[in-house]
C-alpha cells in the first residue's frame, strides 16, 4: 500500500513537471543588467555637426544598407525604428546637442528567430553597436563617431575610422 502511494506521488510529480514544461512561455523582454552609464557609453555617440536632418537621413540610409526595413519613423522626435528579418529591432534617436554637435543613440533588441529560440533580449554588447551601427554610420556621414564627453576615454580617441 505504502509502495503504491509512493508510486502515485512520483507519477503526480512527473505529470505536473511535464505539463508545466509544455506551458508556452510568455514573450517577455529581457533587459540588460548593465548600468545606465555602461549602456549609454556603448549605445550613444556624438558627431561634430549641427545638421540634425543630415544625421537623421544618414541613420536611415545606414539602416537600409544594413538590411533593416524601416517600421516606424518620427522625424520631429528624431526617432526611427527598423526591423531586420523579424529577428532584430533597432531604434535610433537623433538629438541636437548644440549648433555644432548632434547625439545619436541606438538600442537593439534580438527577438526569437527561425533557428534560435529565446525571449526578446536587449543587446548589451559594445561590439554590436560599434561594428554594426556606428562604424557604418560614421562612413555614411564622413564624420568620426565620438564618445559622449562624460564617457570619453582619457585621450578621447574617435572610435570609428573613416
Amino acid at each position, binding site marked *: 500500500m505504502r509502495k503504491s502511494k509512493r508510486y502515485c506521488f512520483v507519477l503526480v510529480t512527473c505529470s505536473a513537471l511535464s505539463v508545466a514544461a509544455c506551458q508556452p512561455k510568455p514573450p517577455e523582454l*529581457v533587459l540588460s543588467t548593465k548600468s545606465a552609464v555602461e549602456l549609454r557609453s556603448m549605445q550613444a555617440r556624438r558627431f561634430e555637426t549641427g545638421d540634425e*536632418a543630415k544625421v*537623421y*537621413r544618414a541613420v*536611415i*540610409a545606414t539602416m*537600409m*544598407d*544594413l*538590411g*533593416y*526595413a*524601416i*517600421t*516606424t*519613423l518620427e*522625424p520631429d522626435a528624431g526617432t526611427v525604428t527598423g526591423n*531586420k*528579418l*523579424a*529577428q*532584430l529591432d533597432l531604434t535610433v534617436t537623433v538629438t541636437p546637442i548644440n549648433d555644432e554637435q548632434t547625439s545619436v543613440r541606438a538600442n*537593439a533588441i*534580438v527577438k526569437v*528567430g*527561425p533557428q*534560435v529560440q*529565446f525571449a526578446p*533580449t536587449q*543587446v*548589451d*554588447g559594445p*561590439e*554590436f553597436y560599434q*561594428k*554594426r*551601427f556606428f562604424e*557604418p554610420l560614421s562612413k555614411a556621414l564622413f564624420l568620426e563617431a565620438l564618445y559622449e564627453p562624460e564617457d570619453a576615454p582619457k585621450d578621447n580617441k574617435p572610435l570609428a575610422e573613416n
Partner: protein
Amino acid sequence: MLRVVFAACLAVVLFGCAPNPNDVALELGQPPLEEGESTTSLRAIQMRSFKTNNTSEITAAGMATLQDLGFTIEAASSDFGVITGSKDRDAVEGGQVAAQVLITVLAALAGSSHTPTYDESQKIKATLMVSKVDEGTSEVRIFFDRQITNNLGQLWKADLIKEPEIYQEFFAKLSQSAFFEEQGR
C-alpha cells in the same frame, strides 16, 4: 567524481544550446551581403537616379506605385522621402505540401511520426527612400524583404529579396506613374 561529470553533462545540455543574444545580434547585424557582393553592387540593384529635383513629387509617385502593387503603407515621411509598406501573400506550393504528406505517410509506415511543415504565408516588406543628389537629380532607393510563416504559425524563413527583376519592375512602374526620366546607374 560521477557527480561532477553528471553536473557537467547537465550544464552542457541546459546551456550548451542556448546562444548568447549578443553573439546572435552581432551575426544578424552584418550587412546583408553574400560572397562576391558589396554594398555598391546591392545599391546598383536597389537604387535609380531620376532627372528631377522634386523629391516630394517622386515620393508621392513611389507611394502610388507601392499601392498599385498591393502594398499597405505603414509609415511615411514626405519631408525625408521615406515610405514603408507591406503586403501578405499566400505561400502554399502544391509540390512542397505533397512532399510533406509523402514523408508523413512513409514515417507512419516506418512506425515513426512526422509533423508536415510547409510554407503557408509570406509577408513582403518594402522600404523606400528618396534623396536629392543635386539641382537636377534625385535618387530613389527601395528594398524588399520577405518573411515566410509555416502552417504551424511559426516564422521560419526570412531573407532580403535580391532578384534584380523585381526591382526593375518596380522602377519601370515608378517611371511610368510619374513620367520621370530614369537615368540609370
